[in-house]
């Protein structure tokens, strides 16, 4: 399915090769192959149930694939991989939790360690620097549970980035954000990928908010994936082969709509609402 890529690309941070996952008899992922390079912003696009979260869990090592291999920064993925930063879906930050934004970012450095923390100037400076990088200084001392959705996402991104990962995975970070906050998060990630030369893989059910920033796309449907640039992947023949039935791609006011064909009979629906005919 995937586009041909150079096999030993030194810039390649994540290499997913022929990954299959079967959960209780149901095939969730079927021979998924793609790569993500340093400094690249990649969108993992698919409707609900397409296997996005499962794929991210496989990359993180929380789900064992039934076939296939994952390499991170040229080495086979190991558990406790410090080179991956992760922002999961639907993190509920309770307003009752006595945790300031800067505390949550600090947990990104040593939250997995046992024993009492040793406060240090270096640690404090690293936290301040990261809060500055995600433009979160203004609410650094507020409780995370009292922040808005977009502010919480920025703090969680800082938490994931402070360990200096090579790869940042984000699971549906835009799901509960209004349009403006979503755009701010996307442009922040775009800037970070560029500045820190890290690879970003972001899952979403809607590709349109990502179009201005996305370098590459991994399109998931029915457990199978197609990857490449948006122009290479979001085409009638590629997506029709992926879905296993005829679909059409339309561009309307700069937005891409993927519609179950034949065109004249189907109502125009955004790609997020695409269902089998």
């Amino acid at each position, binding site marked *: 399915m995937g586009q041909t890529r150079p096999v030993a690309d030194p810039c390649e941070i994540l290499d997913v090769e022929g990954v299959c996952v079967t959960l209780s008899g149901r095939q969730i992922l079927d021979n998924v192959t793609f790569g993500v390079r340093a400094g690249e912003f990649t969108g993992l696009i698919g409707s609900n149930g397409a296997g996005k979260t499962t794929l991210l869990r496989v990359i*993180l*090592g*929380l789900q064992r694939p039934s076939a296939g291999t994952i390499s991170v920064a040229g080495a086979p993925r190991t*558990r*406790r*991989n410090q080179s*991956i930063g*992760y922002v*999961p*879906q639907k*993190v509920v*930050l*309770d307003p*009752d*939790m*006595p*945790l*300031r934004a800067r*505390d*949550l970012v600090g*947990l990104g450095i*040593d*939250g*997995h*360690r*046992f*024993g*009492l*923390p040793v406060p240090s100037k270096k640690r404090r400076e690293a936290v301040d620097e990261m809060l500055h990088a995600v433009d979160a*200084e*203004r*609410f*650094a*001392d*507020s*409780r995370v549970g009292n922040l808005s959705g977009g502010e919480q996402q920025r703090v969680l991104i800082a*938490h994931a980035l402070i360990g200096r990962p090579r790869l940042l995975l984000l699971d549906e970070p835009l799901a509960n954000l209004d349009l403006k906050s979503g755009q701010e998060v996307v442009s922040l990630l775009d800037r970070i990928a560029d500045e820190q030369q890290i690879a970003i893989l972001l899952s979403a059910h809607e590709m349109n908010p990502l179009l201005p920033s996305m370098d590459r796309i991994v399109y998931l449907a029915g457990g199978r994936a197609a990857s490449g640039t948006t122009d290479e992947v979001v085409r009638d023949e590629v997506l029709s082969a992926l879905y296993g039935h005829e679909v059409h791609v339309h561009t309307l006011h700069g937005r891409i709509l993927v519609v179950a064909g034949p065109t004249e009979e189907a109502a125009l629906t955004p790609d997020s609402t695409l269902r089998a005919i």
Partner: protein
Amino acid sequence: MHFVFEPGFFSSHPVHVAFIVGSIVAVVSAVVGVFTVMRGQSFAGHSLADVSTAGGSGALLIGLNPLLGFVAGGVAGAGAMEMIGVRRARGRDLATGIVLGASIGLAALFLYLGTTRSSTTGASQQILFGSIFSTDSSTVPIVVVFSVVCLGIIAFVRRPLLLSSVSTDIAAARGVPLRLVGLLYMLALALAVGLSSLAIGAILSTALLIGPAAIALRLTNRIGWAMVAACVIGVVATLLGVLLAYDSYDWNSRHAAWPVSFFIVVIIFLLYLSTELPLVRTVVARRREEGACLQDS
């Protein structure tokens, strides 16, 4: 002065023991309680208290120190709850309920046998509602050992526990052994509940665990300060409770002192209510905002 501190208060040996045991227990309960409230596990804490009841009453029946029974019961209960239903939240809820019912039944039997067989008619009162004035000074070293172990566990798991309280997904991805951290925390909770049962009784132990922590979490944004505040609130409530119970001896002509646990629980409850007062709420909110602004400039 004599109106507040009744004659003989400072020279009374039971009062000395009550002050020492009460302070230690209040500190341990407050520190563990901050995590219990944050993780939303106050029901688990209360369930462990019920299991401790069975342990404490059993220990009393066979002539052991009730504290050993409280802690043994709590640890066994924590282990049972982890083992039966760790997979799903619903399974855990059911497991907790079933263990809880069985242990209260056991406690009923032990307390009945205890009161009919021996002359200790105060067994039910002592186990269920506390015995801080009748605590033997030989119990103090055991209290200290259990407290050190409990605080040691919390110091050891503090950061992974905090991270997994924020998000189990993030913690798992970072390689935190979630089962081990959960089990160690439950062990610390069982110890804290056992100690608290000794001071104010198995039934009321949750009040000392949850109350000071819940009040502290409303007052500060920082977990370290929340622990300090919870300790201060817990210790003040406990010592004030001991004082009032001692004074209550002279409140009626029959010279029947009221139970310490009653006073401690009422003080905590009133403090909690006071954080709901509009005046307190605005002061706390303003302090929080100022804290945020100071850092900003």
